[in-house]
């Protein structure tokens, strides 16, 4: 579902690039806050050490848990990249691949999940020409932001009623459909092709790909989830 350059109107591409940068910046700030902690530094008064702490200044440092979380993010990103490489056949000469939004968001949370998927998309675009450079914003919005946030909150909402595997499967299916929907809207509004035509075709193909996404995501979360969901 990686949009190449040329499918989107330049205004659409640059607008989405700006939106993706802003959202990603916010997500990165949230992740940085989660992996670091403020360590107070004692500033002793010039009048004498006996006064002890008279003011507290702090600086953010990476915690041990934070370091583990960063490495965990790296592992999840590697898994998503690898599984995305494995295109599986779908009907009538079409293939599909994992998006991975639910996998990342359930394991790491939606903010870290969006960052992880964005890193994968940037590497795919820069090193493998999989997805355009100008279309990178659109791809980040569709797969990383909608894939992580949209589906994560579907997952959270469903968890009240259903068991884990069903929630993951439904959220994963929706992550593909929602990403395909967004992709179709972007292409349609760019004037590349009629919105109604591209919308119908994208949703039809991705409804099937979403079933595989659901199955793969359930499997991956079973294998890689460290413990009980928090």
């Amino acid at each position, binding site marked *: 579902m990686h949009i190449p350059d040329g499918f989107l109107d330049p205004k659409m591409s640059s607008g989405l690039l700006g939106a993706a940068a802003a959202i990603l910046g916010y997500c990165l700030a949230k992740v940085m806050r989660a992996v670091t902690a403020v360590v107070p530094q004692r500033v002793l008064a010039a009048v004498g050490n006996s006064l002890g702490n008279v003011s507290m200044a702090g600086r953010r440092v990476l915690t041990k848990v*934070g370091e583990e979380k*960063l490495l965990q993010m790296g592992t999840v990103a590697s898994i998503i990249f690898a599984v995305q490489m494995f295109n*599986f056949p779908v009907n009538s*000469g079409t*293939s*599909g691949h994992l998006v991975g939004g639910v996998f990342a968001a359930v394991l790491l949370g939606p903010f870290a999940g969006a960052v992880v998927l964005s890193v994968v998309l940037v590497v795919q675009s820069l090193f*493998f020409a999989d997805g355009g450079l100008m279309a990178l914003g659109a791809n980040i919005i569709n797969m990383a932001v909608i894939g992580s946030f949209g589906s994560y909150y579907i997952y959270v909402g469903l968890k009240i009623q259903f068991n884990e595997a069903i929630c993951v499967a439904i959220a994963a299916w929706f992550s593909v459909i929602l990403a395909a929907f967004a992709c179709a809207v972007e292409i349609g509004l760019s004037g590349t092709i009629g919105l109604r035509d591209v919308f119908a075709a994208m949703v039809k193909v991705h409804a099937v*790909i979403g079933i595989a996404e659901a199955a793969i995501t359930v499997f991956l979360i079973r294998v890689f989830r460290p413990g009980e969901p928090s």
Partner: protein
Amino acid sequence: MKKGLPFSIAVVVLAGAFASQNPDGLEKVAEILGFAGKATNRWAIMFAYRIHFLGTTKFSAILAGICGVGIIYGLFWVCAGVFSRLAGKKSTVA
């Protein structure tokens, strides 16, 4: 999570050997609706998940995939290392 990297490498090897070469969902839609030609290709060091000098062999795809896994994991590993160093003596705050 420790099995994550070996798992990624294993998947990349399988993908290099067995992944479908059919167009993906968006590519297929673009073909059917006739706007596939609007896509502009550009050069990339591992274009189409292949190492240039190894051609389009399966080995080339596997090696490109392993490079991708290495680049992605390496980015996070370097970030963790740099932040630890910047912090000087690492905090033990959990």
